[in-house]
């Protein structure tokens, strides 16, 4: 046998082994725990990025450091730093482990259909989650009474958009995405260009949670442009509470000669206007905008509180869906979203904070998701339920049957022999479960 083939087989056996599956489960368990308690310190979005959407991460046990003060013997102790596999890596490993070990290697065991079905459904679920992770856009849409909208906006991503003054529907906006600017803190700067612009855009001083103020209010507190600077606010754990801001300088193309400068702020009332070459351009920072393939108009928004409480009982938006001139009434309420053309619109909230039931100015907030994998979890759920039911039912029948056999010493001996044929040696007490287990369970890692 060639050594290549040997190593191939070794790798194949490793990737499909029970050992890898168990190790993955245990590691997932650990990082899920760490990622859960870490949310107290760093908030959901950060924890999600650090623990679950990463290949690797370094755990510094910040939560334990900050919450175990009552235990004196832990005070001042140095906590270890651990390099751990991130959720992304573990799920990818799990995917291949399942695919090869749980389906391909199991495929000849048609007498165990339940196992194959449930493994397959988890593979489907993982694929669905992957598609969702890579492809889904999530945001929300605030609708005032009678307002129409055909777009939704992101919770976290602050893009810079550049348009010509007077640009309207159908015109183009240039977008400098959040991912390219969100780390340009302090003096870090970066220049963006386009043939469509008579200037380059230099972005710097990005502030994750910012608040503009007059430079006179606190001279020298930050780089000012036109008398304003950005105050650096505390980064909020609820990432959607942060309001991005940055400084932009418009440069003569290809040079560092400034033409204009200004402060961009996510919640500004209006864009920055720059006049270059006799034409006005609007530069603005906005929550990322995604178009909807249809328009929605809020016809009526009703919400109801439990009497004499501030606890919501129900909230319902009556929406007109407008597409190609045709209107259709749709009702969106808690737990009953609207699904159309791959988009899902959910009832998410309302405002303003002090709104009372019946308030004519109350607005609705709809969460919007564009998720191509929306239906996959449901299919997977049904499949995994059926699969496990079949399997455990089968096991139970066998177990009761096995039990009946085990009553006689001969049967016990038979079971022991059967078990010995597998990986583990006969072992007191293990006979009953082994009788129901796949007898060809692979060896633990050699």
């Amino acid at each position, binding site marked *: 046998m060639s050594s290549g083939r040997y190593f191939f087989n070794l790798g194949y056996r490793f990737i499909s082994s029970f050992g890898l599956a168990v190790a993955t489960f245990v590691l997932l368990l650990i990082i899920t725990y760490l990622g859960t308690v870490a949310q107290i310190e760093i908030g959901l979005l950060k924890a999600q990025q650090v623990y679950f959407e990463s290949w690797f991460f370094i755990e510094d046990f910040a939560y334990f450091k900050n919450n175990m003060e009552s235990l004196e013997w832990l005070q001042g102790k140095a906590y270890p730093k651990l390099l751990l596999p991130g959720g992304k890596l573990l799920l990818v490993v799990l995917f291949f482990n399942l695919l090869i070990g749980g389906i391909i290697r199991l495929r000849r065991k048609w007498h165990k259909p339940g196992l194959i079905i449930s493994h397959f459904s988890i593979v489907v679920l993982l694929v669905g989650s992957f598609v969702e992770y890579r492809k889904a856009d999530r945001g929300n849409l605030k609708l005032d009474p009678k307002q129409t909208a055909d777009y939704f906006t992101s919770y976290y991503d602050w893009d810079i958009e550049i348009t010509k003054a007077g640009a309207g529907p159908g015109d183009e906006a240039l977008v400098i995405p959040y991912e390219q600017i969100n780390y340009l803190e302090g003096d870090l700067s970066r*220049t963006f260009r386009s043939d469509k612009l008579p200037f380059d855009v230099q972005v710097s001083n990005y502030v994750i949670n910012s608040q503009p103020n007059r430079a006179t209010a606190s001279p020298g507190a930050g780089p000012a442009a036109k008398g304003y600077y950005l105050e650096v606010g505390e980064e909020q754990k609820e990432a959607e509470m942060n309001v991005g801001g940055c400084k932009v300088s418009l440069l003569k193309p290809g040079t560092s000669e400034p033409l204009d400068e200004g402060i961009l702020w996510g919640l500004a009332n209006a864009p920055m206007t720059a006049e270059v070459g006799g034409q006005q351009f609007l530069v603005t920072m906005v929550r990322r905008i995604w178009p909807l393939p249809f328009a929605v108009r809020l016809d009526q928004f009703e919400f109801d509180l439990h009497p004499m409480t501030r606890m919501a009982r129900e909230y319902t938006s009556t929406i007109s869906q407008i597409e190609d001139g045709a209107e259709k009434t749709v009702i969106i309420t808690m737990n009953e979203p609207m699904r159309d053309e791959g988009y899902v619109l959910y009832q998410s909230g309302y405002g303003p904070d002090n709104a009372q039931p019946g308030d004519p100015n109350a607005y609705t907030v709809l969460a919007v998701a564009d998720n191509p994998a929306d239906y996959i979890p449901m299919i997977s759920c049904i499949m995994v339920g059926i699969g496990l039911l079949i399997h455990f039912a089968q096991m139970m029948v066998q177990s009761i049957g096995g039990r009946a056999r085990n009553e006689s010493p001969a049967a016990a001996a038979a079971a022991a022999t059967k078990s010995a044929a597998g990986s583990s040696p006969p072992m007191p007490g293990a006979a009953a479960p082994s009788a129901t287990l796949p007898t060809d369970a692979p060896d633990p890692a050699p």
Partner: protein
Amino acid sequence: MNLPQSNWRTSAFPLTLACAALLGTGCSRDPVGDVVEITKTRTITQYEPARAAGATDDERFGFSRPVPPPPPGMAQHAAAPFRWKVIDGWTAQEGSQMRVANFSFGPNGEGECYLSLLPGSAGGVLANLNRWRAQMGQEPMAEEDLASLGTTKLLGADAPMLDVTGPFKGMGETEAKPDYRMLGALLGAPEFTLFVKMTGPANIVAENEEKFREFCASVEITSSRGGGQ
């Protein structure tokens, strides 16, 4: 050792490796300092709110302009959002928490006129007018009599104006001053009640009656106080 031999295995493993490679392609950050081409564009949708050009930074960031100094001939209160015309011959006196504007007039400053403000309805128009009447030793008037009162322009509205002559006994005073005259205008706005009250010897008040009306008519609200957002 029984190693797997069948064909599908040989093909499955590279396949899965290829999948792994695909999954592994993540996005990496571009280095800082480069000039980057803007590649992303977006078509503005039909219902997006239009973006206004030409906004100043003050407007963009919700800072109103600093409050401009009052136009010539006008005076304004430091904190309360009111301003008024400076009246010739009236001497501005120290205001108080109660009195937004406070003046004296007359040869020896015998007459006084002030503008004051109470939150809410302050007990209602009639009750207040009757209180004033009582200070001038007059009988209370009835609701129906309100219509017969004269008016003066105050904050752009016609405010009922009391005009009585008689012995004046101010709050806390024991002796009534004879032959006094009182002009009092009162405006009940939803949030507050505005009083303008002039008292003084009848002859001096008579000289200042027009000025009283002029003062009332000039009172205006400064819309914003500036500074904050």
